[in-house]
């Protein structure tokens, strides 16, 4: 099913023509109305009129998260304040937040994209969507809410938390669709199973999971517990929030709405554009945003473009599940490695406990320190040697660099609240 079939299945050539027209328009408006971009073009040899093909976008400088912070609160606005109808902010752990403005047209456009996503995953007017994302300054819940209303489904603005209440809402109103973070979905499943509730007594059919990176294993776990389809959702506040890219029923990569965004994958170190199919940082340019156009925004999310045609018929290319954040990436023996890759391997090995540490000794030596599981220690040397070899081999297969693995006694590594420090880079000390 399609929401806007003509645009969702648009011929690639037509799509590119449309993109170029919208890109030129975006650049022209940004360079006239936003001091930040006006400045950039004044200082650079590149002028808006030099952008005559889509490839020319590579000549433009990037917009970084620091730029949005530095221009807080109104510095990135392209329209007079009276045209703005909504503010969202994206909080950083340090320093000022980023302000994201929506005009009336922008609110509607973001809702249109969500409507495409919902219809794409089989939603109908008689569906009931329980929205368990945070309402408020965060874009996650409100943008989904407006899109779902546009489709005509019943939206329950539950917000996150209060799990018992969530469960009774799901029972009383026969919720079919959840919008939820992966960690909360896992928590919800544990509460339901502790309460002895059987998910098949509910009316659930699908869930949209986003706003945190999660693995394919987690998706399968949630799908099998609730007996539903889980669709991966990608978005970021700087680009409207949810609805930037979304999975279709093929569940094999997320269609990124290319009539609304130009996507590029770059090498986060050099800034060079990479070909389709190669892993790198996603860079997005808005094409339809009125209040706050952003050119070549570095999302810091690592993914790759899946160029192959999708069986669903949509021509908008897909991106893979987010592999990690470029901030976390490190390089050993010239290979880019993300801590998430190492975590995924370790969590798939039974005799490994929760805690681990990555020590970068030199530019060609990485030590992965792993706590063994107390329960699975059986006193046999060969089992530990085999475990160590298994870890080395599986890591080498994943990251293509052979690490040194140290087995540690459980409880040796520091346990930190919240975000644990996993990578110790001795090379920069």
């Amino acid at each position, binding site marked *: 099913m399609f929401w806007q079939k003509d645009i969702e299945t648009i011929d690639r050539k037509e799509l590119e023509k449309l993109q170029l027209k919208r890109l030129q328009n975006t650049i022209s408006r940004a360079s006239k109305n936003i001091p930040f971009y006006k400045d950039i073009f004044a200082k650079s040899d590149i002028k808006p009129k030099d952008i005559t093909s889509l490839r020319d976008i590579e000549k433009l400088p990037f917009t970084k998260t620091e730029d949005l912070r530095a221009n807080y609160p109104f510095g990135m606005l392209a329209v007079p304040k009276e045209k703005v109808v909504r503010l969202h902010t994206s909080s950083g752990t340090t320093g000022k937040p980023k302000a994201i403005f929506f005009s009336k047209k922008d609110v509607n456009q973001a809702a249109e994209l969500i409507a495409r996503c919902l219809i794409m995953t089989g939603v109908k007017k008689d569906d009931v969507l329980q929205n368990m994302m945070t309402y408020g300054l965060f874009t996650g819940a409100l943008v989904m809410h407006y899109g779902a209303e546009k489709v005509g489904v019943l939206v329950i603005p539950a917000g996150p938390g209060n799990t018992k209440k969530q469960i009774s809402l799901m029972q009383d109103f026969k919720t079919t669709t959840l919008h939820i973070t992966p960690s909360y979905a896992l928590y919800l499943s544990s509460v339901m199973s502790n309460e002895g509730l059987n998910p098949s007594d509910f009316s659930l059919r699908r869930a949209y999971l986003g706003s945190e990176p999660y693995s394919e294993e987690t998706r399968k776990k949630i799908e099998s517990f609730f007996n539903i389809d889980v669709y991966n959702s990608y978005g970021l506040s700087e680009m409207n929030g949810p609805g930037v890219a979304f999975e279709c029923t093929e569940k094999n990569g997320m269609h990124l709405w290319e009539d609304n965004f130009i996507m590029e994958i770059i090498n986060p170190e050099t800034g060079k554009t990479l070909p389709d199919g190669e892993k790198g940082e996603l860079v997005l340019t808005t094409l339809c945003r009125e209040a706050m156009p952003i050119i070549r925004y570095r999302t810091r999310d690592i993914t790759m473009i899946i160029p192959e045609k999708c069986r669903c018929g949509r021509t908008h290319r897909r991106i893979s599940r987010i592999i990690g954040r470029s901030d976390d990436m490190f390089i050993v023996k010239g290979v880019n490695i993300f801590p998430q890759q190492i975590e995924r391997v370790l969590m798939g090995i039974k005799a490994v406990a929760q805690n681990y540490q990555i020590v970068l000794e030199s530019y060609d030596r990485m030590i992965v320190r792993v706590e*063994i599981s*107390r329960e699975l*220690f*059986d*006193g*046999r*040397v060969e089992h*530990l*040697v085999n475990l*160590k070899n298994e870890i080395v081999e599986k890591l080498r297969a994943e990251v293509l660099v052979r690490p040194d693995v*140290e*087995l*540690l*006694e*459980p*409880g*040796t590594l520091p346990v930190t609240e919240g975000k644990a420090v996993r990578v110790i880079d001795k090379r920069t000390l």
Partner: protein
Amino acid sequence: MEVKQISLFLENKKGRLWEALNVLAKAKINIRALSIADTSDFGILRLIVPEPEKAKKALEKNNFTVRENDVIAVGVSDKPGGLAEILKILTDADINVEYMYAFVEKSGQKAIVVLRTDSISKGKKALKQAGVTVLSAQQVYSL
């Protein structure tokens, strides 16, 4: 009851062996026999003590990773070929010895050796049938 051995995982860290032995000293546990299996980056300390349960608890309380296993303790004639004789019995019975180590003390005229075979019950049976002195847990702990 089988003779119990305590195995302790030791990561390759200075002073870690001392810390383990210090826990046992403080708990007033006397070590009857010990052996260390080591690889380049970790080790397993194996111990025979009179009160294995108490030792295990004391070590676990101090965050050590501990496992209790069954082993066989045999009396070996203290003369050339004494140990070889015993291993021949096991070899002939197609029983694999994973590791072994010796006690400091003797039991009467015999030296005592701790054996870990792939099957403890089969190992014990073969040795007993061949007339080897297999010590009970009680005998071992009271040495």
